């Protein structure tokens, strides 16, 4: 019997179509069809300049948007050859790991719900809300944040972030312990997941699968350890590895990875150096006053000694913030926007701002290409950028981490029953935004 598991189907995972050839309840053959959420990311990225691509990257893997953002800006930085400051690196690590925890929470929650455990879903979503509140404090939005900038991040962490994060991590650990008690030794859960959706090591490598999928088969490949970026080599963490390559191992790998991610956040918060470094005695004045002084020609010492406090709504754009997280020097001027009080106050800042924002101007990396891999929630997320020397990217290619598991899905469900497809598909963690771009 030929049956269609069509695009609008009762799983909250996204749109996909599986054409099944069944013999009773057993799957004899399967074919997977994707492309129902193709939103032309790669074509849209060629239409604007380098900074205008960042909102599009948010919506690629929409459960862990910060990782995509940072992956893209790291690729552009590789092409330009600049390095962001240490504090910005630590901020990137912290936000990436928080995003990874939300990714795994959503994956486990949704797949648990499909197997019948609505309670675990509600508990995990409650934990996710704590993390969304944290992300909102830092970036201003819950989901589509556009937080990364080439050369750093948009703004520094707010006051009291460290305490809030530690409290949120504590609450998340409590929720994870509850869900562990509910699910890990649960007879129904284990029976449905163990031995189902098995993939062998050789197959996983041949299909180019990375991430928790590969780690559940026994190979410990993690981009954070193999090619460390953002300063991950200064932080200690383990990589959980499974044995059998079935759904149950993937669930356990994800649960353990969440614990490791929270451990990384705690270490990064402890290692991060606080506060700006001031060399000269200076005075702090309100930003509007600095602009007025500059306009009236009283510019002595304004750029070197005086620091300005800007309105909280322009957070992240004042010099006080920039000193902590933006790289200093001539190279930074080519990619980072100047502080607001400089933009309005003196002509150098205004010209710098103009050169970066207006159409036709903007950061122009040298002609060439670069590929930068980061560890996304599902595996190796790579950005391949080709530049032709103008301010618009010539080609932006995303290597989707969930495309190889989907290419291998037809092999994993053959021979199983129809109900096993739900369990396997849930553990693949297909994010349609990333698969179809």
């Amino acid at each position, binding site marked *: 019997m030929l049956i269609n598991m069509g695009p609008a189907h009762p799983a909250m995972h996204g749109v996909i179509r599986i054409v099944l050839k069944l013999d009773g309840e057993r799957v004899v053959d399967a074919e997977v069809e994707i*492309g129902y959420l193709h939103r*032309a990311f*790669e074509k849209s990225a060629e239409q604007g300049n380098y900074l205008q691509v960042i909102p599009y990257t948010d919506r690629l893997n929409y459960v862990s948007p910060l990782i995509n953002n940072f992956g893209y800006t790291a690729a552009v930085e590789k092409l330009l050859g600049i390095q962001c400051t240490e504090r910005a690196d630590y901020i990137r690590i912290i936000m990436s790991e928080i995003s990874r925890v939300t990714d795994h929470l959503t994956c486990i929650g949704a797949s648990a719900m499909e197997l019948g455990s609505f309670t675990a879903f509600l508990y995990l979503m409650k934990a996710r809300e704590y993390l969304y509140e944290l992300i909102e404090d830092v970036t201003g939005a819950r989901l589509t944040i556009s937080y990364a900038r080439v050369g750093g991040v948009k703004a520094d962490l707010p006051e009291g972030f460290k305490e809030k994060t530690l409290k949120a991590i504590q609450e998340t650990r409590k929720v994870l312990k509850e869900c562990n008690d509910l699910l890990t030794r649960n007879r129904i859960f284990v029976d449905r997941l163990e031995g189902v959706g098995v993939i062998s090591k050789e197959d996983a*490598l*041949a299909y180019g699968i990375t991430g928790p999928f590969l780690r559940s088969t026994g190979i410990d490949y993690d981009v954070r350890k193999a090619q460390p970026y953002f300063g991950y080599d200064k932080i200690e963490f383990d990589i959980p590895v499974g044995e059998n390559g079935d759904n149950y191992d993937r669930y356990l790998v994800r649960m353990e990875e969440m614990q490791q991610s929270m451990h990384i956040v705690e270490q990064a918060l402890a290692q991060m150096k606080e506060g700006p470094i001031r060399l000269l005695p200076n005075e702090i004045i309100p930003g509007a006053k600095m602009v007025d002084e500059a306009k009236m020609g009283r510019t002595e010492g304004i750029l070197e000694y005086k620091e300005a406090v800007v309105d909280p709504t322009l957070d992240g754009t004042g010099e006080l913030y920039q000193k902590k997280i933006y790289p200093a020097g001539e190279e930074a001027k080519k990619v980072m926007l100047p502080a607001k009080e400089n933009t309005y106050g003196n002509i150098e800042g205004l010209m710098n701002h103009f050169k970066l924002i207006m159409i036709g101007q903007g950061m122009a990396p040298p002609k060439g290409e*670069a590929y930068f891999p980061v560890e996304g929630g599902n595996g*190796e997320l790579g950005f391949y950028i080709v530049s032709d020397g103008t301010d618009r990217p010539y080609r932006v*290619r995303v290597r989707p981490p969930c495309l190889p598991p989907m290419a291998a899905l037809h092999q994993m469900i053959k021979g199983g029953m129809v109900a096993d497809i739900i369990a396997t598909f849930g553990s693949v963690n297909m994010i349609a935004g990333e698969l*179809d771009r």
Partner: protein
Amino acid sequence: MNLIEIIKNHFPDLVLSSHDQCGDETVIIRKDGIITLMKYLKHDPALAFNMLIDLTAVDYLNMGAKPRFEVVYHLYSLEKNHRLRVKVPVEEKDLEVDTISDLWPVANWFEREVWDMFGIKFKGHPDLKRLLMYEEFVGHPLRKDYPHNQRQPLVGPKN
């Protein structure tokens, strides 16, 4: 010896050029040698590239480069922890490249996507059809001469 030199010593007539920009080693080879090179890269014990990370293409129409398309392969070796990029220039009049889906099964889907987006055919591919767009779509969207908002709706007005 770094990777580019090893490959150049082994296949001196296949390699057209190479570069090392931003630390990524890249070789540009002739179209007909792709299968031999890939087999060598996969099976040679010193190189051992066992994972195909990505397979994509770039359209150089606006940059005016002579072979209009280039198919780009990213390879990674798990034991040796090194990466390589292989580029194959393809002329507009002869849009065919050999498939490598026997070596790495994931190339099946990647090549379908390249066919869908650029129109480059792969010889020997088991089932070359569109992956991301629907079958009734005419044209190849990621080419530079396809306007970015030209729609071909199945249902509803064309906006």
